[in-house]
């Protein structure tokens, strides 16, 4: 299953959020239920309180009515007007008094039967009051049920200077408007019922009818608190029998509270709770983010960064902020780990440095050796090869490591392969068998001669681990040995030739002198003159041969210096320019401009003159002579090739070409190439020739480079 990366921060935030959200929702639900129950309880209490309140309200209404009636009864104007027959004025006064008070009417009934009422424009005259009725002096409040409605009436005696002059009645009509006012005061719909009729109500007409039905039913059930449906809403209704009318009829007040309001309050509370919960969640989320960032993630990030720093190699890193908790313990462990790693690394580094020094030391030894050291493992593959081995075999193998014996032998000459295999097979035999092998690095380098042998490579337990092949380059030694051999041979010939030349030089001088005398004595038109000229000419040629022979044999001083190859070859090319053109031979030189050679320049010019003239003379029908000079980077030689497109030479001619006086030309001295060979030998170099009849001839010169120091 593929692991999905979810950041720790996200997990922490989600976890905290879920925890807090769950807690908040539980609290929210609990509080909502609590609010609901509490609201219902409060609602019930409120209904009970309302039932009590309406009684107080009713009493206060009665008291208010009575107090107002008594205040009116104390009005001087009313008593004066009543006493002094100013009934019209009295009428106006009661109307004025009652205006805008909310009372229904104010009526004054005088002893004499005159009645003045605020809602009657006519002053009526009735029966005089019965003064014997002691109740005339009493104040009372009663409910009057008339056809036009229900009234609360306060009746008080009216006195003028202590004398009873009549009764004052102040009435308030318990009508819809009064019920609405009461409803506003009590914050509950109210209705008043007498007998089977709802006489007034603050309720809408449809609701009033519903209540009237319930009132009728309830007159049997006698429930003080009940529910009723008004429209789609449920209302709680409380009933209070508040009073009885003057006729003894029961007056009932109904108080109705819509549960919708309660439910709405609960819903509001719930929404508020949800809102608060929402805010709590938002705050919790922010706190979670901050907490995870400040308390957890920043410190984890510190650990991560620390690990990265340590992974980057800085083992000295230590976490500075270490708190007293689990992450703090982790940080301490981290610091201990880093310190331990640093200590171990320091030790390891010390060992490694020591080993590296040792390895370098061994490597330097091997690298410094001029002897090739090649090790084979037990499986027959080259395991190591030192610098000298890589150098010596660089022309054959780009690398030696990993080569099998077969691969190694494949590029060696057959004789060398045999020598190596023989050495391989006899490695375990006592005595160290030495052998020589010859390798041919390539066309531009001379053959190398290496001498060495195999040794067993043993491990710590002295068990065979592999083989060691050591080879030393003895090429130079071989060349010197050959040169010594040739020098010795040529030296004998030269000395012999020089002695011969001295012997014939004097007679030749005599012959030439005499020949020249004869020329002087002989007229040009003399027929003998031609023979004399031939004699003198041949004597001159013989003198030249003798001079060359003496020159060849004469040990000359050399002046070696480092010089650009161009400074040697350009004068030579200019010198032979006319001769080559005369023989229709194209000269072509190819060399690096900065190629330098350490030579005796005058002698080397003689080498190239001899080789080029030799080439020109080899081409009767024209041709091309190419001169190429180059140096391989690791080679100790500068290689110069002079190649012509002439007739070529047979193998026998090639073998003798550098011998003095060996010539294939009729008028050659046979000393040109011998002098070339001598000059090259003088430089410590070597010259090789390769030629085939019809394919031209190529001379290859190897000149040693200047040895530093």
């Amino acid at each position: 299953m593929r692991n999905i990366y979810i950041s720790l921060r996200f997990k922490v935030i989600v976890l905290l959020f879920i925890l807090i959200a769950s807690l908040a929702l539980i609290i929210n639900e609990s509080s909502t239920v609590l609010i609901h129950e509490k609201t219902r309880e409060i609602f019930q209490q409120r209904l009970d309180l309302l039932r009590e309140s309406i009684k107080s309200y009713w009493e206060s209404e009665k008291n208010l009515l009575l107090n107002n009636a008594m205040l009116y009864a104390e009005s001087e104007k009313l008593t004066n007007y009543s006493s002094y027959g100013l009934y019209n004025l009295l009428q106006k006064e009661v109307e004025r008094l009652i205006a805008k008070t909310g009372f229904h009417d104010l009526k004054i009934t005088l002893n004499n039967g005159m009645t003045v009422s605020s809602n009657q424009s006519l002053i009526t005259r009735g029966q005089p009051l019965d003064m014997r009725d002691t109740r005339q002096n009493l104040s009372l409040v009663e409910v009057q049920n008339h056809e036009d409605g229900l009234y609360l009436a306060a009746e008080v005696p009216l006195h003028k200077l202590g004398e009873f002059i009549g009764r004052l009645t102040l009435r308030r009509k318990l009508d819809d408007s009064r019920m609405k006012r009461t409803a506003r005061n009590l914050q509950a719909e109210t209705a008043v019922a007498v007998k089977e009729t709802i006489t007034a109500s603050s309720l809408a007409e449809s609701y009033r009818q519903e209540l009237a039905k319930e009132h009728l039913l309830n007159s049997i059930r006698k429930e003080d608190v009940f529910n009723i449906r008004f429209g789609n809403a449920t209302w709680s209704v409380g009933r209070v029998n508040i009073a009885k009318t003057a006729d003894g009829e029961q007056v009932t007040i109904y108080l109705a509270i819509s549960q919708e309001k309660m439910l709405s309050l609960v819903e509001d509370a719930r929404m508020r709770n949800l809102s608060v919960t929402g805010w709590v969640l938002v705050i919790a989320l922010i706190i979670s983010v901050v907490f995870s960032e400040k308390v957890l993630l920043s410190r984890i990030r510190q650990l991560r960064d620390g690990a990265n720093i340590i992974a980057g190699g800085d083992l000295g890193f230590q976490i500075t902020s270490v708190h007293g908790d689990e992450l703090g313990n982790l940080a301490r462990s981290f610091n201990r780990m880093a310190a331990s790693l640093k200590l171990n690394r320091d030790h390891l580094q010390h060992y490694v440095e020591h080993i590296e020094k040792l390895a370098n030391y061994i490597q330097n030894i091997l690298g410094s050796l001029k002897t090739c050291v090649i090790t084979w493992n037990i499986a027959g593959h080259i395991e190591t090869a030192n610098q000298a081995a890589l150098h010596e075999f660089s022309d054959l193998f780009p690398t030696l490591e990993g080569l099998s014996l077969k691969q190694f032998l494949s590029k060696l000459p057959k004789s060398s392969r045999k020598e190596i295999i023989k050495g391989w097979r006899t490695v375990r035999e006592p005595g160290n068998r030495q052998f020589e092998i010859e390798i041919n690095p390539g066309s531009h380098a001379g053959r190398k001669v290496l001498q060495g042998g195999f040794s067993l490579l043993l491990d710590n337990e002295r068990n065979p681990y592999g083989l060691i092949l050591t080879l030393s380059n003895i090429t130079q030694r071989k060349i010197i040995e050959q040169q010594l051999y040739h020098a010795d041979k040529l030296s004998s010939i030269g000395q012999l030739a020089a002695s011969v030349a001295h012997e014939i030089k004097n007679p030749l001088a005599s012959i030439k002198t005499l020949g020249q005398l004869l020329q002087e004595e002989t007229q040009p038109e003399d027929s003998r003159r031609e023979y004399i000229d031939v004699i003198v000419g041949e004597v001159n040629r013989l003198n030249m041969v003798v001079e060359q022979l003496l020159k060849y044999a004469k040990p000359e001083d050399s002046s070696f210096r480092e010089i650009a190859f161009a400074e040697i070859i350009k004068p030579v090319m200019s010198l032979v320019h006319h001769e080559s053109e005369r023989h229709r031979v194209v000269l072509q030189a190819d060399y690096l401009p900065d190629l330098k050679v350490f030579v005796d320049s005058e002698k080397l010019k003689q080498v190239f003159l001899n080789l080029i003239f030799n080439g020109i003379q080899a081409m009767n029908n024209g041709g091309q002579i190419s001169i190429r000079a180059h140096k391989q980077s690791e080679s100790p030689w500068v290689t110069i090739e002079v190649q012509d497109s002439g007739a070529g030479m047979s193998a026998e001619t090639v073998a003798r070409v550098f011998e003095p006086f060996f010539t294939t030309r009729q008028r050659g001295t046979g000393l040109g190439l011998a002098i070339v060979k001598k000059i090259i030998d003088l430089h410590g170099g070597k010259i090789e020739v390769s030629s085939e009849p019809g394919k031209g001839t190529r001379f290859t010169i190897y000149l040693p480079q200047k040895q530093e120091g």
Partner: protein
Amino acid sequence: MNSMSLLLICLIIAFCPGPLHGTSDGSVGLLSRIDFAPALLEMISRELERTTGRHFSLIFQPVEASGSVTFNDSTPLMLIEKGIPETMLPEGFEKTGLTINLVWVLAAGRDVTQVLGSQTLTLEKFAALLAELRQNDPQRFPWFEPLLSKNTMRNFCLLYGEKAPKTSTKRHRTAMFHQQPHAAAMLYRAIEAELLNPLSVEADLGLAMEVFAAGDADFVSYWIPQSYLANAALRPAYLAGVSFTPFPISGNRTMLPRMTLNLWKSKEQKIDAIISATDPDQQDAAIVELDFLSETAWINSSYTANYDALIVGDL
């Protein structure tokens, strides 16, 4: 009703829009000892408008019983009761020549006016009429007077005599009210006979006018512009059907107390088209010109005794 209340009422009338005036052309101070009721002030305003052709708001400045006056000289025009010494008047004012006469008459209600017809009301007829009215309706008193008003008391004393030692005899103790020797006795007897409303002794001019307007009394004394006597068309609508007659006194005579208000103006004020109104004389009534100084002097010296006599019946 005290003077400050009156001032307040006047201000309310002056500044409240209503039938009293349209657009006001300014205000006129009214300086008098009479405690004018609102209805009377309205009559004066109407009369002033009729005579000047312009509508003014009246600002009543009552004269205290002590005779001192507090002038509100911000009004460039002032109606000043005749007889007030010029030394008491503000400087820089001069008479315009316009006068308004107010007469103190007996007002009869509409029902009574119909009964009376055009016959002249004598004191005996007045008494008989009162008795008849009382008899017809024993629950009400036919006559009402603002006897708490000092000027009313003064006027009654002026018409029917004031209390003096030895003015009442044994004969008078059984005589009817109109046969009494002085005003206090007459009024007392009228109250005793339940002809005059007993509340009269506690009533001021305003209450009296209210009682009369409400129809709770058939007779009441009334200050009106003299022009109303001759020309009923000048009266306000609410007085329609009400008749005004000079007070009957003994000897089948009638008497008409009259007070004159002169219009003064500041010398910088210019008033055009002042109509010089001349009220026709009331031939059958003896006009008594009321004098500010003598009236004030009487009130200060004799009112209390006469009023006390009225209250306690010390006849």
